[in-house]
């Protein structure tokens, strides 16, 4: 673990986006849904670095969206296997990769209500690489069993399923997901965090190697791209995030 007392020269959001960039890998088309500013930062940065590759479809954007067939095109595109990577979160996520975007407690008389399932009840099944992100890593969010399954981590053999979760990114660590065994495996712990802390704050069992690496810091080049080139692009769809994290204000020209 990092015990250095010098503060890191990157923000937590930048570290998570950089980790997501590595998880995306070499693909043709990355789509980013609602309420996903950190994945959007990752996808747009990767595209800048790749000189326009991969294609990025950013929901809610005019500039970073090539779809011309309305809201359904994202789903039709995914159903055909033309979207390689998507991002989902959850009010709760459990150790089998089930995600809950709906409610806690009895569905008809819930104790907590989240916004709803969005496209998860479909995209989780048909996008080959779904990257789960949940910034708050706690026993409240990472639970033994979700109250409501918006989308399951896996299905019976005969159910058409060309996609599913490959990883989970939190503010403390990075997990890989083994779809065959339906279990998470700790891949790395972020600088300043520890394995003990991850165990303490995770409500489900997971596998881990004997020695857990530290998540690498973003390179100076990546940080420069994020701050100078991508942050102003983000302001179109995520003005609050762009201003809070990067101090970038939405300008009329970004519309």
């Amino acid at each position, binding site marked *: 673990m990092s015990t250095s007392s010098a503060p890191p020269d990157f923000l937590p959001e930048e570290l998570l986006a950089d980790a997501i960039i590595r998880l995306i890998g070499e693909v043709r088309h990355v789509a980013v849904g*609602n*309420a996903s500013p950190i994945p959007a930062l990752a996808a747009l940065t990767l595209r800048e670095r790749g000189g326009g590759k991969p294609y990025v479809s950013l*929901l*809610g954007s*005019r500039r970073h969206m090539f*779809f*011309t*067939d*309305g*809201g*359904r095109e994202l*789903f*039709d595109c995914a*159903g055909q296997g033309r979207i390689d990577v998507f991002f989902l979160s959850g009010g709760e996520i459990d150790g089998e990769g089930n995600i809950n*975007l*709906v*409610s806690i407690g009895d*569905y*008809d*008389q*819930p*104790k907590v*209500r*989240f*916004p*709803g*399932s*969005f*496209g*998860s*009840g*479909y*995209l*989780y*099944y*048909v996008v080959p690489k779904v990257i789960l992100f949940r910034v708050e890593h706690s026993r409240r969010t990472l639970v033994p069993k979700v109250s*409501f*399954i*918006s*989308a*399951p981590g896996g*299905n*019976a053999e*005969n*159910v*058409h399923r060309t996609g599913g979760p490959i990883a989970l990114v939190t503010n403390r660590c990075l997990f890989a997901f083994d779809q065959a065994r339906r279990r998470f495996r700790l891949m790395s712990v972020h600088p300043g965090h520890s394995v003990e802390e991850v165990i303490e704050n995770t409500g489900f069992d997971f596998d881990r190697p004997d020695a857990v690496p530290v998540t690498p810091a973003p390179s100076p080049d990546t940080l420069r791209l994020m701050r100078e080139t991508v942050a102003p692009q983000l302001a179109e769809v*995520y*003005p*609050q*995030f762009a201003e809070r994290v990067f101090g970038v204000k*939405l300008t009329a020209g970004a*519309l």
Partner: protein
Amino acid sequence: MPTIARSLDEALAPIADGCVLAVPRESAGVPMAATRALIRRGIKRLHLIALPTSSLQADLLIGAGCIETLETSAVSLGEFGLAPRFTAAILASSITMKDATCPALHAAFQAAEKGVPFIPLRGLIGSDILAHRPDWRVIDNPFGNNDPIVLLPAIKPDFALFHAGMADRAGNVFIGRDRELLTMAHAAAHTIATVEALYDGNLMDDPALSAGTVPGFYVDTVAVAPRGAWPLPLLDHYPADGAHLAEYARLAATPEGFARYLDQYVHVQRAA
């Protein structure tokens, strides 16, 4: 022939208590001026279908007591957090919620526009969304072998209501790339559109514009409502009013604050 209404209230008059009303997601032209007019009129028992999600619009209608049933995939204020009146209504069981997933709503509208009774969709199997939708079925794909697939009934709303940039005097409405508005108009029995401004000439005469146009054939009424999506965005025209949405989120956190919001921004017609 579609009518160009003399006022917003005149255009909205046919939308009666208890009807099934379809509206679009935040980035596709949410008719907020029309929503405030419906609340002022005291509309009740709406079955609101937000294709496929909603934000301020559903929250306002719920808080104002206009909704009996809500069918959508999510309600959230996005960067401004949870939708407070939606959340409160669900916790109090004061509305009926039909949880969906986005492509299920898109597909069910597409079934209606084709005039077929149902449409299949991948995904959903093993989810609690499906478990809580007795109106959805799972069949074995008749063209496959041991391949379960979900069937969704067509959604045929009484009204589609949306806001767009412009319409011509023949009632053709320009929607550009927001083509789910075309699907909504095809699926609904009646369509009412509010627009920023009227277009001089006929949109159908220009091949580039006509490709992004809902033909007047599908449209009942158009009303002019400048800044009619405010405080939500109308892409290509204006962004969301973030300061106002932050104020809404703060006020709507309590019933008293929500009532103050209605007094200040809905019941008193806002001076343009």
